[in-house]
């Protein structure tokens, strides 16, 4: 009875949320012949949502594949192809109620069987990049045409709904899967989304047209043509929109200031979006040089994050104490005081550490914004008597060095994730392995509790707040500031401000339109 009530409640909340979530562009104002050319800094390597080596691919796949669930700007779950979802049988399964008005672009109806085929593909495909996201699914039962039951590995799956909002939950036509064609480069009408790719040039251009079948979401798919171009230089993207060659362009770094000024002057419109991609310093607490917690705390208090945000990003980076947007359900307000800039306290902590001449290395990727950050940090640490050696390394090699425990620290960006479980895994229990073995074991227990479907959302939030507090108290992970991005667009383009997924810097633009 309780389970049924829970399911009903969830469905009602989901339906209400859905009707509120989409901010529709006024239908009368939309030009049905409208087309948009967008300049984006991310390359496209694959249009197969289950084989996406880079995050940047998602901006392309979002346009052509709908997911089972979605995430709103506060990173809260919302329905998409699944109308509602609920954990049943004491957390042993997740049941999804599916929409009954969805058709894949090749005409195949969307149903529970399609969900089963897709999730099994994501789990079992040898080259799948979403295996980890779906690992909590033990088996899949088709309950009815539009109801599917995901049987879970005991104690796991609390984070599965969030995973189903990512590419792991993207729905490909079962017919296209059965065809066995290479969906990375030749997806054609395999999608379930608002747009279909007609020209695919990897790392160059993808041209989409409106879905050939009636699209279920009347608030999306307004464009006749949507061209996404990979343009590496921010200055070129800005020039493109100034010259009228682009309708929408992602502007980053030092060009953001110029873009905002031009927008103020009326040249075009600009939307400044806050992401939860956090410029960070990762400190390996198990390395000899950083074993001392007082020293790590001294490092944290010696760094003036505001100064870095201003000097390196021209102020276009929000100082933060955690890699979550401040509206996130697991955001912990307590953390701000644990990492405040206080050089006197830092100097005192160095003394308390008992280390005569503290020294450690900072790995960074040269030629990127991490280089000036590392330089500034080195100077700030020298003022409190800490000697930081700078070690330039290519990005991926730096990541590997820190992950394998071959370097003390790394200046890098922690990308916004769909669920805090991914961040905990990346920072503490896997990935970067920042916590020493004993603490790692403790965090692993907490993390396991947090993904248990028996936990209520409030309980999950409380556990993650505790984990992040532990990370901040022990100064393993030091967030500096969360990047902002400007999306410059022509004034007749609407819906840019209302797009979702800015938190991950991967806006879902399927709802934008050209106004008459």
């Amino acid at each position, binding site marked *: 009875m309780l389970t049924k009530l829970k399911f009903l409640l969830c469905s009602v909340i989901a339906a209400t949320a859905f009707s509120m979530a989409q901010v529709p562009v006024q239908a009368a104002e939309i030009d049905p012949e409208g087309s948009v050319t967008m300049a984006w800094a991310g390359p496209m390597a*694959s249009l197969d949502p289950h084989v996406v080596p880079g995050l940047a691919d998602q901006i392309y796949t979002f346009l052509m594949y709908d997911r089972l669930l979605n995430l709103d700007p506060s990173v809260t779950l919302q329905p998409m192809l699944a109308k509602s979802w609920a954990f049943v049988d004491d957390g042993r399964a997740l049941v999804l109620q599916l929409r009954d008005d969805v058709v894949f672009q090749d005409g195949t109806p969307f149903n529970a069987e399609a969900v089963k085929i897709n999730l099994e593909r994501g789990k079992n495909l040898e080259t799948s990049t979403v295996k980890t996201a779906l690992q909590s699914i033990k088996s899949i039962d088709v309950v009815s045409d539009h109801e599917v039951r995901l049987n879970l590995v005991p104690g796991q799956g609390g984070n599965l709904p969030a995973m189903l909002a990512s590419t792991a939950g993207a729905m490909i036509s079962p017919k296209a899967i059965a065809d066995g064609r290479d969906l990375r*480069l030749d997806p054609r009408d395999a999608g379930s989304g608002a747009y279909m790719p007609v020209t695919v040039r*990897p*790392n160059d251009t993808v041209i989409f047209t409106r879905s050939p079948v009636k699209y279920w979401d009347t608030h999306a798919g307004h464009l006749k043509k949507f061209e996404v171009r990979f343009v590496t230089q921010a200055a070129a993207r800005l020039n*493109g929109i100034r010259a009228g*060659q682009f309708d929408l362009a992602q502007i980053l770094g030092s060009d953001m200031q110029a873009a905002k000024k031009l927008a103020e002057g009326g040249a075009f419109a600009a939307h400044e979006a806050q992401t939860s991609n956090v410029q960070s310093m990762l400190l390996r607490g198990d390395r000899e040089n950083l074993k001392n917690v007082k020293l790590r705390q001294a490092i944290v208090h010696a760094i003036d994050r505001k100064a870095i945000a201003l000097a390196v990003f021209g102020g276009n980076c929000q100082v933060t104490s955690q890699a979550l947007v401040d509206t996130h359900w697991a955001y912990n307000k307590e953390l701000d005081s644990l990492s405040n800039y206080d050089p006197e306290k830092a100097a005192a902590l160095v003394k308390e550490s008992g280390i005569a001449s503290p020294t450690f290395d900072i790995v960074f990727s040269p030629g990127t914004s991490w280089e000036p950050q590392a330089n500034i940090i080195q100077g700030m640490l020298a003022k409190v008597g800490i000697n930081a050696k700078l070690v330039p390394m290519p990005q*991926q090699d730096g990541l590997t060095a820190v992950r394998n425990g071959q370097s003390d620290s790394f200046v890098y960006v922690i990308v916004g994730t769909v669920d805090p479980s991914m961040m905990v895994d990346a920072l503490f229990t896997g990935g970067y392995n920042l916590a020493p073995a004993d603490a790692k074991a403790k965090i692993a227990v907490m993390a396991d509790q947090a993904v248990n479907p028996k936990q209520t959302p409030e309980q999950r939030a409380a556990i993650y707040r505790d984990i992040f507090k532990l990370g901040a108290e022990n100064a393993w992970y030091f967030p500096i500031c969360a990047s902002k991005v400007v999306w410059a667009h022509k004034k007749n383009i609407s819906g840019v401000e209302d797009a979702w997924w800015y938190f991950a810097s991967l806006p879902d633009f399927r709802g934008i339109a050209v106004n008459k």
Partner: protein
Amino acid sequence: MAVPILLLRRLLGAVPLLLVVSFVVFLLVGLTPGDPAARIAGENATPERIEMIRKSLNLEANLAVRYGDWLFAAAQGDFGRSLATSEPVVELIARRMPITFSLTAAALIVSVVLGMGGGIIAAIWRDSPIDRIVGALSSLGLALPSFWVAMILVVPLAINRTWFPALGYVSMADGVWPWLRSLTLPAIALALLPSAEMALQVRAALIETLEKDYILAARARGLSVISITLKHALKNAAIPVVTVLGFRIAQLLGGSVVIESVFALNGLGTLAITAALASDMPVLLGLTMVTTLAVVLVNFLVDASYLYFNPRGRRA
């Protein structure tokens, strides 16, 4: 030795060069620290995925074995597939080649027109104000970085006035005029340095030639300086100029990397950057082969031109 045999020998000499270049690139990429499989797998890849990539690339085999495998396939025209996008390397390069070659050719034409014109004018009116203006402009051309010139050109000519596109490439199939418009600004920016160098080279070579006895004799017979220069002196001054031109074509190919980025032209230059960042070895090797072949071909044409400009070379 007959001219065709001489040229054939030059062409055959390119084969060991291609082998050496490909091996050096293979070696350098192989010696780069870090795990190429991890780099290709991306940031959030599982250890299993990294291991799978390592196996698929045969990274456990030693460098010589891997190079041998690549060479064997390449000799049959199979340059493999891009590790990042899975596209066949040959197709990838073939799609991008027209952009870079169009840009290089356009820049070369601009260089020859500006460089030859400036050099001839400066030599004919040696030590005049015109000569000094050409000298000053050449110095500027040598000093200004091409990417900076590119950005300066864009604002007045593509943004304030939409005479040219600010970025992007239009294929010739979409019209000759749009194609030319899309190449104009990048070609000017790319041609600045070679134009300046060529103007100075042409000037110096022409001045030396114009002081030769046979030129003085022609002038004594009443022929005009312009006529003598264009009909007689220019051909004799051509050898050092052609040599510089040969070097410059190779540098234009290299310079296109920067200019392609500024103008968002998705040619071989941007492909090289993306491939290098992704450690996409098959693409890097394919690109190296194409650019080496282009340079070999240019050197061959330069050699052939020597035989035209200096008939004594045919008997050597």
